[in-house]
């Protein structure tokens, strides 16, 4: 009997065989372990992200939700409030308005490579991707550089779940609460002395004459930090791993840097960091012979939809020239990732620098360790040797 358990270690390391079984045999399956329905086919997920009236985000979007987030972040609010909040913040996340980040990201990438390259071995996650992404994010949000390490450590803890109890453990919730307090303090500082940064912008934003509530500012900032620290850094790491696993693809990209942008899209399809998000049903829905009830939670398995052969031919082939239109690497619909332009900009900038200096590299261990998370997927470290 097939079970789908997002808490199992196999789901962290290699969920793709289970995804195939889901898509082919149980396209709408109740998972007792997850206590929600699992949608795994591209069309079903693409439909659900568009149909926010049925598949609501108002009860949270993470598989295991954190206390006090729901209703105060973009990802856990429904329209119309969501749309107004999003349109306000979006201005800071357009390609044009992010141009100022390209040069600092490039400098940061060069500087970190200078530091680890002489050693000939390095951890891509701690030595490169997290430093470049956290550094760029901190610049954008106006957070002090000396807080990099502690903020990142807390984010990595709070996104995890306890495998035994199948929910957030006290250590995960404590990391979250401590970070909330930290962000609250940063917001208070901006209220006294506004700066040219994103937190100040949130404070000063108005929707139809109303300022954002304190909790909206804090929880939205928290989400931006979580996405910037975890999703972006993890995505860059996954891309470096793809480029390691498929050396022909890597050499193709290095020989023709124009392929970097489509390679990023293919990595987003092949193994996006945000594998699974959830919604709650606002009405009964019948799908593939199953009757889902209003109030049930539904998992949208982006990582599976991205490997659905009905949408992407030969889905398990990593092809940097695929140009996968409509992939779910950033989700879709109302809650399409806010940071698409930022993710593309920072990844392209950093990976270009990386490949210019380190075109050939190999893993120094056989078996990777994976983050224990029901929502995100990424290796905890990528020890590489420069060849």
């Amino acid at each position: 009997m097939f079970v789908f358990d997002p808490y199992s270690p196999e789901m962290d390391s290699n969920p793709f065989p289970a995804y195939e079984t889901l898509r082919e045999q149980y396209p709408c399956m109740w998972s007792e372990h997850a206590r929600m329905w699992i949608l795994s086919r591209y069309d079903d997920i693409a439909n659900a992200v568009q149909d926010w009236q049925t598949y609501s985000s108002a009860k949270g979007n993470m598989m295991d939700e954190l206390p006090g987030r729901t209703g105060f972040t973009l990802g856990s609010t429904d329209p119309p409030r969501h749309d107004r909040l999003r349109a306000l913040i979006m201005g800071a996340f357009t390609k044009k308005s992010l141009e100022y980040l390209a040069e600092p990201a490039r400098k940061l990438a060069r500087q970190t490579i200078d530091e680890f390259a002489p050693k000939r071995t390095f951890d891509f996650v701690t030595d490169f991707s997290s430093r470049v992404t956290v550094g760029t994010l901190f610049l954008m949000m106006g957070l002090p550089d000396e807080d990099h390490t502690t903020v990142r450590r807390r984010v990595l803890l709070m996104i995890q779940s306890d495998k035994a109890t199948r929910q957030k453990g006290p250590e995960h919730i404590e990391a979250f609460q401590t970070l909330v307090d930290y962000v609250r303090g940063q917001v208070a500082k901006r209220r006294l002395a506004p700066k040219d940064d994103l937190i100040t912008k949130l404070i000063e934003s108005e929707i139809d004459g109303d300022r954002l509530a304190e909790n909206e500012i804090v929880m939205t900032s928290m989400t931006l930090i979580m996405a910037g620290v975890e999703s972006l850094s993890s995505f860059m790491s996954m891309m470096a791993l793809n480029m390691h696993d498929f050396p022909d693809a890597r050499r193709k990209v290095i020989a023709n840097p124009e392929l970097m942008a489509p390679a990023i899209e293919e990595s987003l399809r092949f193994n996006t960091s945000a594998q699974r998000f959830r919604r709650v049903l606002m009405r009964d829905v019948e799908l593939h012979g199953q009757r889902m009830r209003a109030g049930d939670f539904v998992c949208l398995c982006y990582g599976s939809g991205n490997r659905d052969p009905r949408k992407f031919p030969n889905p398990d082939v990593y092809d940097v020239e695929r140009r996968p239109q409509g992939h779910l690497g950033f989700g879709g619909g109302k809650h399409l990732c806010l940071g698409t332009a930022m993710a593309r900009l920072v990844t392209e900038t950093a990976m270009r620098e990386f490949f210019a200096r380190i075109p050939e590299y190999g893993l120094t261990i056989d078996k990777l360790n994976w983050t224990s998370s029901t929502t995100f997927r990424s290796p905890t470290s990528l020890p590489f040797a420069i060849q």
Partner: protein
Amino acid sequence: MSIFGRKEKETATVIYVSPAGDAREIAVPVGDSVMEGAIKHGVNGIVAECGGACMCATCHVYVDETFLNRLDPMDATEDEMLTCTVSPRRPNSRLSCQIRVTQELAGLIVRLPETQV
């Protein structure tokens, strides 16, 4: 008139003009958006990353002036999203996912911007 209520889907022509000036005429089902008409027929130059949720500003078009006053007015969200387009916003800028095709709009001309992302 069909007994069982089945009828051919009504369409209206939308003309998509590329930045180079090439025009494509497409019969778009009434009720679909101008964005959907482009995506379903593989018109290059409309990305529509969010799939029609008015959240990404990558289905930006310049609407031919003669049709402008026949469109439903834009709401506050579209107005704010239009400040996020990569190609410059002009007075006739709209997001094509927010334009529903009707018979009154038959012959609608939209010009595509240089770039969406």
